[in-house]
């Protein structure tokens, strides 16, 4: 089947991101297609490229990046939710006159329409909240 994941919780602060990553990996192992992981609300914090958790704790940003590298799962971050929370890629940073950026590929900033699109064209959408 074709699945979409909606993640609304920040890494570390809540378990939501851990649950979502593990569930998504289980989907891939079962042979399902994961059409996208959409990051919204505080979930956009999963794209924070500077996150530096202690070495003996799971690193969620790296976990999502590895999932993308291994299986090509799109990682879509709501742009409006991200900008308000200080998560900008290079293009948005320069558009807002800021030096530096806090989001890098494979995470892509995108519109909220993508969530609706994912939700309606996939067989299942599974949400993980804080």
């Amino acid at each position, binding site marked *: 089947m074709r699945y979409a994941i909606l993640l609304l919780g920040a890494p570390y602060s809540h378990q939501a991101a851990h649950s979502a990553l593990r569930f998504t990996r289980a989907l891939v192992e079962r042979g399902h297609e994961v059409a996208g992981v959409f990051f*919204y609300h505080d979930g956009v914090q999963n794209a924070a490229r500077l996150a530096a958790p202690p070495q003996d704790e799971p690193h969620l940003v790296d976990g999502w990046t590895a999932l993308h590298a291994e299986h090509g799962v799109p990682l879509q971050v709501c742009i409006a*939710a991200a900008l308000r929370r200080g998560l900008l890629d290079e293009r948005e940073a320069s558009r807002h006159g800021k030096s530096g950026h806090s989001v890098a590929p494979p995470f892509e900033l995108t*519109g*909220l*329409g993508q969530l*609706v*699109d994912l*939700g*309606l064209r996939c067989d299942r959408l599974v*949400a993980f909240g804080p």
Partner: protein
Amino acid sequence: MSEQDMPGGELLVILRHAPHGSSWLREGLDAALVAAAFERRVSLLFMGEGVTALLDGQQAGALEQKGTAPTLAMLEMYDIDALLVEDEAMRRLGLGEDDLMLPVRRVGGEAIPGLLAAHQLVLNF
């Protein structure tokens, strides 16, 4: 509300949070508006504290936070007309329909499972 005139549609957005206190309500409404702008049939269900989003007389916050009342006032323009309100929450809050800024349909607890079943996608905020 009887089973037969229960609104169905593509997206049901459940709003369970009050205005101003958090971004949940705003972000849920944004999802509903985007779906409506893409010509999807959208219903809103206000549950629990979310019912207070509809109170009339809301204002900007002390630091000029806009709140969500201006967004709700625009719903009609987006053809979102299925505004459903949990009866039990209204009762527990001691509110009547004349306390609300928009006309709504009250739903009893027994109708809520059918509402969820009648929509292709349910998002909880």
